[in-house]
């Protein structure tokens, strides 16, 4: 009857009681650290996020979509940050934000769905690997109570796999009575698929602070912080963002998208308090967008984009890039920002350094069969 005992413990947590089982060994020093992956679904425009304002071709090709450098937040003599990214620019000033430009996964076609599949599975091509790299990362950590969580009702591909993970998203539905939840637990006891899902759900509910269960960006940031900030909470989390596919009316849409991301990150940092020092956030997208504006005030599917690394221990205040330039001959297939850095290698290095894992082991496990490199190191203190 172990299931029932477990269930009752979760139910008590769910009822709002802070119940700490004496049997729980708190995580050791390694797993005091947190890693958050924010995926930008839809191909986020890296060129208008981290803007190469001094590249003369940028103005010409982007025409009415080019961000006016006088409104942008200057990072250095080459790059500036989109004006919507106020919080992130402050992190940059405090050397807690790092930008990586002209970076791409191994995927070189332009399908969102294949591109996201490659980004999330860590395969060399679409549908070659079944599980997600974030799930394999969970497998590299010492087993503790609740390692990984998706802030969504369902589990995104990057987190799917053999390691047990959970999901949580604020619900606007009236809560079901605890008695019914317990009965559902019995109902699923004999079901090999539903039983573990239900146990994970009850555990996550036990950790949630449902007072702040809203779905706006600031609330999502705070909810994530309320889980990650707990000593007995998850160490790895994933947050999904969508709406980056700006084929038309890009200027307004991208400004709103980036503002939401910026607000969420700010709320996460504020909510984590001191734990922010042990937290790393990685923001990445499946591929970038065309350098030239299209005919409808937007941009079409491209190749390389920009990734963002944030956190209290990040050795930030830098833009890491092997900038390929935007003149016609330097573009990938004559239209896209050419990838000069590997997103897989960046992810492996950031994850390994954040969680104090062997970088080689992380690369082999997260991105099997992909070449490793020494380029990314010393990113996290």
């Amino acid at each position, binding site marked *: 009857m172990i299931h029932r005992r477990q269930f009752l413990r979760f139910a008590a947590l769910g009822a709002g009681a802070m119940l700490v089982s004496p049997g729980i060994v708190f995580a050791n020093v390694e797993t005091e650290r947190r890693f958050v992956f924010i995926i930008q*679904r*839809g191909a986020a425009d890296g060129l208008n996020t981290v803007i190469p304002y001094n590249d003369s071709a940028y103005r010409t090709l982007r*025409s*009415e979509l080019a961000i006016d450098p006088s409104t942008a937040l200057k990072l250095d003599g080459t790059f500036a940050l989109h004006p919507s990214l106020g919080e992130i620019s402050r992190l940059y000033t405090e050397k807690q934000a790092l930008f990586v430009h002209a970076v791409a996964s191994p995927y070189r*076609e*332009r*399908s*969102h*769905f*294949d591109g996201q599949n490659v980004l999330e599975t860590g395969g060399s091509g*679409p549908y070659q690997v079944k599980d997600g790299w974030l799930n394999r990362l969970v497998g590299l950590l010492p087993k503790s109570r609740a390692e990984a969580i998706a802030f*969504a*009702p*369902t*589990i995104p591909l990057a987190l*799917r796999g053999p390691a047990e993970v*959970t*999901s*949580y*998203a604020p*619900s*606007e*539905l*009236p*809560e*079901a*009575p605890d*008695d*019914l*939840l317990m*009965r*559902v637990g*019995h*109902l*699923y*006891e*004999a*079901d*090999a*698929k*539903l039983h573990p*899902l*239900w146990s*994970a*759900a009850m555990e*996550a*509910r036990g950790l949630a602070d449902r007072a702040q269960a809203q779905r706006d960006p600031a609330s999502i940031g705070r909810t994530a912080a309320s889980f990650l900030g707990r000593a007995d909470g998850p160490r790895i989390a994933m947050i999904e963002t*969508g*709406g980056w*596919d700006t*084929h*038309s009316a890009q200027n307004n849409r991208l400004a709103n998208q980036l503002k939401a991301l910026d607000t969420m990150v700010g709320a996460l940092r504020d909510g984590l308090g001191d734990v922010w020092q042990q937290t790393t956030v990685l923001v990445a997208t499946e591929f970038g967008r065309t350098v030239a*504006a*299209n*005919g*409808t005030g*937007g941009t*079409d*599917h491209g190749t390389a984009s920009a990734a963002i690394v944030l956190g209290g221990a990040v050795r930030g205040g830098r833009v890491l890039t092997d900038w390929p330039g935007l003149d016609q001959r330097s573009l990938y*297939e004559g239209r896209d920002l050419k990838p000069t850095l590997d997103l897989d290698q960046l992810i492996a290095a950031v994850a390994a350094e954040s969680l104090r894992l062997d970088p080689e082991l992380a690369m082999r496990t997260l991105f099997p069969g992909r070449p490793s490199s020494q380029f990314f190191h010393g990113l996290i203190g």
Partner: protein
Amino acid sequence: MVGKTTVTAATIALDRFGLGARPDEAPPADPKRSVLDQIERLGAKPAAFDTTRSSPEIATQYAAELQKLLGSDKADNLEARKALREEIQALYRAEVEARALAALDTNTPFMERLVYFWSNHFAVSANKPRVTALAGAFEREAIRPFVLGRFNDMLLAVEHHPAMLFFLDRVGSIGPNSQAAQRAEAGDTRRKLGINENLAREIMELHTLGARSGYNQSDVTEFALALTGWSTGRIGEAVPNHAPGVFVFRPALHEPGSRRILGKTYSQPGEGQAESVLQDLATHPATANHIGTKLARHFVADTPLQPVVERLSTTFSDTGGDLPSVYRALIDLPEAWTSQPAKFKTPWDWTISALRGIGRRDLDGINVAPLLNQLGQPVWRPGSPAGYDDTAASWAAPDALVRRVEVAERIAATSPSDVDPRELARKLFPDSLSEPTAGEIDRADSARTGLALLLVSPEFQRR
């Protein structure tokens, strides 16, 4: 273990090919026949759609109100904009309700399932106001009338529909050497004129051939050029029939010349050029394989076996995309009648089957659109042109299960108090109710709890 649930052919006909049993209907005596028969008798337009409006009616009203806004001063403008947004949301909710009512009332549930399947295959996403306003009309006009026809007719209807043209940014895509572009160059306008390749790419990748099936970037670009000129009417156009919400071909925006796509040259002038490409894409072997795979995944198993896919794709190819023939081949597959439920219901299908299961034909006290938002499947808003994913991994997840329990509890609370959940469970799953579910319902402390347990039981979640 999952293996404990085994279901009868009657339950398969009702759940795997339908929208769940109703307590006031006897289980089918000849399950397979009962599904096949539905293909022959697609009835009249569901009564729930009597009060809905057409795309031109909706779009004309929207355009007129938007035009009024542009003339008003700033303070009024904000208020009026908010009112317009709310109006569009109300229209969207009414469309979702009409769809749900049709599903509760239907006696051809297999047809409704096919409407949902194709609507998701040709997904639009209600993230832009214009698409939100037209999403329901799109399904009624471009999907529903074609589910028992030929694939190429549905494809043409879909790609001409204003909702799709708005969703994939076709309106305003201009050939770089078109008359309009040349005029603009002469006038030295600042606005950059050119193509947008979104629709062309998604037609190839999602609607027809499928990803990694052999087309390349040049095929996408050429197809996007062929599609220039495909547009919709605007308010106040002098040309008859050029009304908002109506497909319009604009020759001045069309890129002149012939196009080369998948090794074939298309030299038709005007609108016929892209139509001709669509006709070829509709019957391409890669399309047959793509559609066969998706149908098999939807009705048979998350990872369908290759012979199953081949039977469907061969039928598709042999009949030139005659959809009823493909459905008959599907129903004839022994693999579709295995007694182990292989599919996990989507939130929409689960909600509809729960309401049908307690005998509802109305939606009193139920707000379907917000309910589906909470369950993680906003209707017509998958967020991406790929539509919603069709495997258990996307729907069976920790938090998603809790949501279903919360909704089941609400639905159970609305049902008449004299319903005996034990009796209902045996009626809805004749000879298919599992031991643990029957036992747990028997032990429930109230009819309401018993009913909620039935609605979230493993047999109710799967099909």
